[in-house]
């Protein structure tokens, strides 16, 4: 499994070097770091004839990106907007996030895919959680079904389920606690690969490239395989048995099916004789789905391949549940509702290490100048602690400033990405500006810190850019 996943990541690097022109733009907004999804989804879409360009939004800013017409995602106006919230970060703000995403997708003309969040592993009532509607599992399922119902009758939206990816991986292997602490990545690669397979299935259907013609070498058909061919036919695929090495693309032409919707289904290791790769590659077929040597595994392999994908009949879609009377929130309302509290206090021995780490790791909101260090004569270093309705974030930033010629010069103003989008920067700047006297911000441009300069410029502060 690990080798397979590494091979996909390597392929994604190789695809990136080919300079292939993207035909679909996919925007990703998540309440966690979702970047590990990109290689798996990118390769799956590339193989489906849908080369993709990704726009990834900042960590845990689904609502902010969707409500702000000047956000990076609004500027991207992606063809497909994938929104992936988790209960652990959003709690009862999940409906707000989905509402905001649905409205934004409509404004941007995006097809919306909401990833239903997995049920949290931590249960409020421990082993007794399942017995009451107040339990974590029950409330999570209720919220998940409300999202599904909200989107059920929209032709421009779909859902996929993170719970399915977690379950197929196994909860014991689905989470990576150290990686979550380090980079807010909650899941292992296997979960991201599973999630990508689900998303790719939806996007193949949306773009009409779900494989519909399945070509099988007659000689490979056994009783065991025949059972699965029946499943394919039941799922709406046309199964064509071929007797020789006729290209899949030629059989697709014969059947009146676009080459991109035709796939070769093969069993066991590649022999080289069964594929006419050159002609099929030129014609852009959907490639080969190869089943392993063990028939017992074929059901799962076929499911993951997407060959069994088919849209449920509309009349079976769940009816829209009555919506609670929720008012539409503005960005300001949402941020105000987070009840953010910001504490600035002089750095001390207890907070020095945390301050140094947060300054070293801040990439987006930072002046890009130097590490904070400890205070000295004429120099003040402040630790920024943040809490909101979801909990405490601890030391989440730092400010360092010195007296230079009767004015204050700030050369460190760094915030962890975990607290961005909550208005923390406004609070800190407000407190700095509230003190009398001139103040300037020393700034060095880095590949990632443009938002810091933009924020300070919009606030009308004095910026001294240094090389």
């Amino acid at each position, binding site marked *: 499994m690990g080798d397979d996943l590494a091979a996909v990541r390597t392929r994604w690097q190789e695809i990136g070097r080919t300079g292939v022109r993207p035909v679909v733009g996919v925007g990703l907004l998540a309440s966690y770091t979702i970047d*590990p999804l990109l290689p798996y989804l990118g390769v799956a879409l590339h193989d489906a004839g849908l080369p993709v360009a990704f726009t990834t939004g900042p960590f845990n800013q689904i609502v902010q990106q969707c409500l702000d017409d000047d956000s990076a995602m609004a500027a991207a106006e992606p063809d497909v907007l994938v929104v992936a919230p988790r209960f652990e970060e959003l709690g009862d703000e999940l409906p707000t996030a989905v509402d905001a995403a649905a409205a934004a997708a409509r404004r941007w003309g995006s097809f919306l895919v909401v990833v239903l969040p997995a049920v949290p592993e931590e249960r409020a009532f421990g082993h007794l959680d399942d017995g009451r509607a107040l339990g974590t599992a029950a409330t999570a399922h209720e919220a998940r079904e409300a999202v599904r119902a909200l989107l059920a009758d929209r032709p421009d939206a779909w859902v996929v389920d993170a719970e399915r990816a977690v379950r197929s991986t196994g909860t014991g292997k689905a989470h990576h606690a150290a*990686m979550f*602490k380090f980079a807010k990545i909650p899941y292992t690669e296997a979960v991201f690969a599973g999630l990508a397979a689900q998303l790719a299935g939806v996007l193949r259907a949306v773009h009409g490239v779900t494989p519909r013609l399945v070509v099988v070498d007659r000689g490979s058909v056994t009783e065991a395989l025949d059972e699965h061919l029946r499943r394919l036919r039941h799922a709406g695929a046309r199964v064509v048995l071929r007797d020789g090495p006729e290209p899949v693309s030629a059989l697709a032409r014969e059947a009146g099916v676009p080459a991109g919707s035709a796939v070769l289904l093969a069993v066991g290791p590649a022999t080289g004789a069964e594929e006419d790769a050159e002609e099929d590659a030129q014609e852009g077929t959907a490639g080969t789905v190869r089943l392993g040597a063990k028939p017992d595994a074929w059901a799962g392999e076929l499911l993951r391949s997407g060959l069994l994908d088919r849209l449920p009949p509309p009349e079976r879609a769940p009816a829209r549940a009555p919506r609670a009377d929720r008012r539409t929130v503005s960005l300001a309302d949402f941020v105000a509702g987070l009840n953010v509290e910001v504490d600035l206090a002089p750095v001390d021995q207890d907070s020095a290490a945390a301050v140094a780490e947060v300054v070293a790791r801040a990439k987006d909101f930072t002046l890009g100048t130097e590490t904070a260090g400890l205070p000295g004569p004429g120099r003040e270093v402040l630790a920024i602690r943040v809490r909101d309705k979801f909990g405490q974030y601890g030391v989440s930033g730092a400010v360092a400033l010195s007296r230079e010629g009767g004015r204050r010069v700030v050369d460190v103003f760094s915030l962890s990405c975990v607290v961005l989008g909550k208005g923390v920067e406004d609070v800190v700047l407000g407190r700095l500006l509230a003190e009398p006297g001139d103040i300037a911000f020393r700034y060095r441009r880095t590949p990632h810190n443009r938002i810091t300069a933009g924020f300070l410029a919009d606030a009308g502060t004095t910026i001294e850019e240094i090389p």
Partner: protein
Amino acid sequence: MTFADVVAGALDVDPAHVTDEAGQDTLASWTSMRHIQLIVTLEEAYGLSFDYEEIAGARTVRDVREALRAKGVEV
């Protein structure tokens, strides 16, 4: 696959550049996201897992090599 191949593949660099001195400050491709790819690739390749301190502390190839050796992997 050698240790240098694994690291080079994850960081998308020539294996010849995988020296002990190479690190986040010297290899332009060793970005924060590539760092994560490196960690998960090493975990998959050697069948082990890193804790937070090891992930955060692996700033050079030497750091990575020492972290693996501490787990009994001869690289």
